[in-house]
C-alpha cells in the first residue's frame, strides 16, 4: 500500500451549457480499495466516470491516477494510462461485429499486440472466471442474454489484469438473482486481481456487496462517504433518505410530485 491515492479528483467541475453536473467534486480511492459511488439519476455519476476515463474533459479541477494528472493528456499518453484500466459499461457495450472471445481479448490484441492464439487462450480462461464455458467463445454477442453479455463485459474488463477497474451500473437491467451473481463475480474477480475499483450504482444491496467504501453523490458533490457496512446506521439525512427511497428529505428530485 502507498500513501498516494490510486485515483484522485480535486475540485472537479463540469457543466453542459447552464446545467452544472459536477461541482467542486473531491474524491479519492486508495490502492486496492473498492469504492462505490451511489446517487440518484442525473447527479453526475456517469459524467464523473467519463471525466476520469478522458471521454469528457472537466471544465476545471484536476484528476490524478497514481499521482499523475490525466487532464489535457495527448491521445497517446492517455492510451498509455488507460492500459492500466478496465471498464464494464452499463449495457456491456460489446462489439457486435466480433465474436465473444475477440471482445474479451480486444485490448490484448489491439493495445498489447498479443498473438491471436495466445489472446484466445486468455479470453477463454477469463470467460471461465465469469462462469461462461469455452463453447461461448465463438458465439456472437447478439445471441446472448443481457446477463451473459454483462459477464462477457466483465471478462473483457479483467482480461488484461488491470490495476484499476470501473463499473458503470453493473446490475442495471438484470433480475435480482442475476444482479446478485454479477455483484459476486465482480467482488471475487477484483479481489483475486487485487485491483482498485470504482463502481457507480443505484443498487444499495449490490453496493454493500462490492464496496469497501461508499460515497453518496448529490448535485455533483459528495455529501457523504464512509465504510460500506455503516451506510444504514450513519445517520446522514441524505443517506437515510436515499436508503429508504423517501420522496421527502434533503434530496430534491427534479420532477413534479403526482
Amino acid at each position, binding site marked *: 500500500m502507498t500513501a498516494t491515492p490510486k485515483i484522485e479528483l480535486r475540485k472537479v467541475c463540469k457543466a453542459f451549457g447552464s446545467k452544472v453536473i459536477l461541482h467542486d467534486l473531491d474524491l479519492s480511492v486508495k490502492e486496492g480499495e473498492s469504492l462505490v459511488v451511489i446517487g440518484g439519476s442525473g447527479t453526475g455519476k456517469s459524467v464523473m466516470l*467519463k471525466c476520469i*476515463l*478522458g*471521454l469528457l474533459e472537466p471544465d476545471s479541477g484536476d484528476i490524478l491516477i497514481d499521482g499523475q494528472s490525466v487532464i489535457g493528456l495527448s*491521445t497517446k499518453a492517455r*492510451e*498509455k494510462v*488507460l*492500459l492500466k*484500466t*478496465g*471498464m464494464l*459499461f*452499463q*449495457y456491456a*457495450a*460489446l*462489439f*457486435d461485429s466480433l465474436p465473444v472471445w475477440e471482445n474479451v481479448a*480486444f*485490448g490484448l490484441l*489491439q*493495445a498489447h499486440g498479443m498473438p491471436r492464439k495466445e489472446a484466445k487462450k486468455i479470453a477463454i480462461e477469463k470467460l471461465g472466471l465469469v462462469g461462461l464455458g469455452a463453447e461461448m467463445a465463438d458465439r456472437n454477442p447478439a445471441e446472448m442474454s443481457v446477463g451473459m453479455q454483462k459477464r462477457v463485459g466483465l471478462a*473483457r474488463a479483467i482480461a488484461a489484469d488491470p490495476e484499476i477497474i*470501473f463499473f458503470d451500473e453493473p446490475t442495471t437491467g438484470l433480475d435480482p438473482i442475476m444482479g446478485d451473481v454479477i455483484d459476486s463475480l465482480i467482488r471475487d474477480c477484483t479481489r483475486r486481481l487485487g485491483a482498485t475499483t470504482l463502481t457507480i450504482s443505484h443498487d444499495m444491496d449490490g453496493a454493500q456487496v462490492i464496496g469497501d467504501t461508499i460515497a453518496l453523490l448529490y448535485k455533483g458533490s459528495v455529501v457523504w462517504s464512509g465504510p460500506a457496512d455503516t451506510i444504514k446506521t450513519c445517520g446522514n439525512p441524505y443517506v437515510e433518505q436515499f436508503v429508504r427511497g423517501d420522496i421527502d428529505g434533503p434530496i430534491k428530485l427534479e420532477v413534479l410530485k403526482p
Partner: protein
Amino acid sequence: MEWNFFAAIGRVFISFMAAVGRITKFTIVSLRHCIIPPFYLSLFLRQLMNIGYYSLPVVGMTALFTGMVLALQIYDGSSRFNAESAVPTIVVIGLTRELSPVLSGLMVAGRVGAAIAAEIGTMRVTEQIDALATLSTNPFKYLVTPRILAAVITLPFLVLLGDIIGVAGGFLVATESLGFNPGNYLTNTFEFLQVRDVVSGLVKAAVFGFIVALMGCYHGFHSVGGAQGVGKATTNAVVSSFVLILISDYFLTVMLTVQP
C-alpha cells in the same frame, strides 16, 4: 418581431458555421490519421470488400443502363441534324467524364454511406466507441481511417469498371437496335477518347469516395439519442453526400476541363 426575425437568422447562421467547423476539424483529424501509423490492415481489407466488391452489382447495373439510355437519347437528338456518327464519341465521353463517376458516387453514397453512418451511429449510442477508447484503441484509426482509405481507393476502380460496362451498354443498343456497324462503333468510340477524359473521371471518383466515407463517419460519430438519432444520422449522411458530390463535381469539372 423584426428583432426576432434577425435573431432567428443569426441562430441558423451560427449553427451552420458551428457545423462547418466541426466537419472541418473532423476532416483534418481523419486525414492526419490516414497518414500516421499504426494502420489496421485487416479492417482496411474488410472495408475494401464492403465498399468496393459488394458495390459492384449496383454500380454495374447503373452504368449498363445509363450507357444504353445515353445511346438512345443521343441518337434521337443527333439524328435531327444528321450527326448520328457522333453517338459513340458522346457516349464514351459523357460516361467517362461525368455520368459514371457521379452516378457511381451517388449509388455508393446510398449503399455505403448510409451503412457506415448506421454502423458507427449504433456504436456511438451503445457506447461501443467509448469502449474502444477505454481499451486504448483510437476510434478514428479503428473506424474512420480504414473506411476513408478503402472508399478513396475503390471508387476509381468501380468507376473504371462502370466506364467499360456503360460503353458496352451503349454498344449493345447501338448495334442491336440502332443499326450501327460494330467495328465502326468501336473505332469511333476510341478515336476521339483522350486519356484525360478517363483520368478526370477517376480523380472525381476518388474525391467522391472521400466525401461518402467522411460524411458517413462524421454523422455516425455525432449521432445522439438512440434509434431515432441513428436514423437521422443515416439520412444526413446520404443527403450531405449527395449535395457535396454534386457541388464538388462542378468545381472539379472546372479544374479538370480545359477552359476557353
